[in-house]
């Protein structure tokens, strides 16, 4: 299912945050949204999910304007992982992951075997099955991040939008997380992630959108976006995309004067 933005603009409290942003996320691809702090990555992701009012342009989900979708229908095809990882009650890990099945539950209905299977699979994929009965208040920040991604995976979404899912994860879990994103993309899912780790973007993402001050300054394949000129313009750093032993790496020399 395609997720697209055309000339999308959005403002928070009257301050423009996105200015005419175009983005096309396709099934089978992992799309990275990168850019410095305050570039508008989170607002773009929230706007793609219909969570912020837009001031111009439009978002199409499956070629249909988002406004034509009800909240309940969006929830059955699109899962969103917010940057904010607060869980407000001392819920058990399995109960949190099971919240991902809410869009498919009828009012008052009990979870079905399919619900339980989706929850178990999501917990196994995010390596949190061993934590199932622990309260989320008693696990580490990285573990909580994986639990919350598992919650979104339990929705079995056609489109997954995740805001900085890799932040706070150890290197092994960062790699397995992105390997899993590639795997579900391979199965037809559309994956959009906001990222700060440029090497992860270069290594795992089929396409990269570089934002600065609410506008797209480059978009396309990683090697065309992560050029020294673009990185200098966006982040003010001296950096280059290299390939070490066949693995793309973004090497950052330092800040530009």
């Amino acid at each position, binding site marked *: 299912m395609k997720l697209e933005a055309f000339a999308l603009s959005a403002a928070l409290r009257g301050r423009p945050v996105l200015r005419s942003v175009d983005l096309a996320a396709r099934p089978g691809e992992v799309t990275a949204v990168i850019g410095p702090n305050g570039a508008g990555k989170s607002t773009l992701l929230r706007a793609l999910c219909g*969570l912020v009012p837009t001031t111009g342009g439009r978002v199409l989900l499956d070629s249909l304007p988002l406004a034509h979708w009800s909240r309940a229908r969006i929830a059955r095809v699109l899962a969103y992982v917010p940057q904010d990882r607060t869980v*407000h009650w001392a819920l058990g890990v399995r109960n949190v992951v099971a919240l991902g099945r809410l869009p498919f539950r009828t009012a008052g209905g009990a979870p079905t075997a399919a619900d339980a299977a989706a929850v178990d699979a999501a917990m196994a994929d995010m390596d949190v099955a061993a934590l199932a009965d622990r309260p989320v208040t008693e696990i580490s920040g990285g573990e909580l991040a994986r639990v919350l991604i598992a919650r979104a995976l339990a929705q079995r979404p056609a489109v997954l939008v995740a805001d900085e899912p890799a932040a706070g994860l150890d290197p092994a879990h960062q790699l397995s997380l992105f390997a899993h994103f590639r795997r579900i993309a391979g199965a037809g899912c559309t994956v959009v992630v906001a990222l700060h780790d440029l090497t992860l973007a270069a290594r795992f993402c089929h396409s990269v959108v570089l934002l600065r001050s609410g506008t797209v300054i480059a978009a396309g394949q990683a090697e065309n976006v992560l050029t020294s000129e673009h990185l200098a313009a966006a982040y003010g750093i001296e950096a280059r995309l290299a390939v070490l032993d066949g693995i793309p790496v973004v090497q950052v020399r330092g800040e530009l004067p």
Partner: protein
Amino acid sequence: MSIARPAAARAEAVAPRALLAGLTAFAVLAFLLSLAVGPAGPLIEAAPGARWLIFSEIRLPRALLAALVGAALGLSGAALQGYLRNPLAEPGLVGVSGGAALGAVLAIHTGLSQAFALALPAGGLLGALAAMAAVILLAGPRGGGITLILAGLAVSALATALVSLALNLSANPFASVEMVFWLMGSLADRSLVHVWIAAPLILAGLALLLRACRALDALSLGEDAAASLGVDLPATRLLIVVGISLAVGAGTAVTGVIGFIGLIVPHALRPFCAHRPGLLVLASAPGGAAMLTVADVALRLAQPYLDVRIGVLTALLGAPFFVWLVLRARTELAP
């Protein structure tokens, strides 16, 4: 792992049902106990004609009101705590208790309650509905829990000020005493008519709040995540305000202000619900009914020696509860 999984899943599915069944059985037992307590003894030793009268005019309305109002306070408290994601929220925070109190006090102040007895609950009901309308208008169509609570506090503060004004200006000391006693909350001397006035509105309010359970579960992850899970946030807020206003407003209109049940019951039951806000809303209805009924029975057993009003008793229970919360927080937050 593969062997343990089905067993664990089953245990989780049964436990909430067992909890709800246990609490409901407890509430029913408390209700039956309440019917059996009174000066005439458990079997109502009186003349045959008086026996039915004592049962239908004194004991049944009191037991029914305790169960209904207790359920309304418990469930509303759990719903508001879940909506605000704050364990210290109390259903009165949405302004409805203050509005009901003001309406009833005005009914006494104007002498309407002298003219016909039902002016008192009618005034309370009108006050509760006016407070609800004011809170909804003030909080606006958008915005989250904070604007709702600020609007509720503003309406409560105004209602409290006007209640004080009515007490202050009351020329008739008997009316003043009546107002003060009404504000303390009581289940005594209510008839079945009071039950019929309150019951439909309380049940309607509770039905609305039950529809918010799924949204409350989703809100555990914050407003954005809840919306992405299909929750209509403005509709949920409206459900919460209207549901609590109907349930607690109708209850307060017939019994006066009964505090702390809506705070203590969800708090006490939360660990047994695995901290799940939706399940807690369900559990807090029989929990609240049982707690208010037991408190009322205790009150009546003590009555020959000590005549205390139910609202005063729940307030007396509420203060040590807060002390316990402080002590627990101190040990939990200790380095």
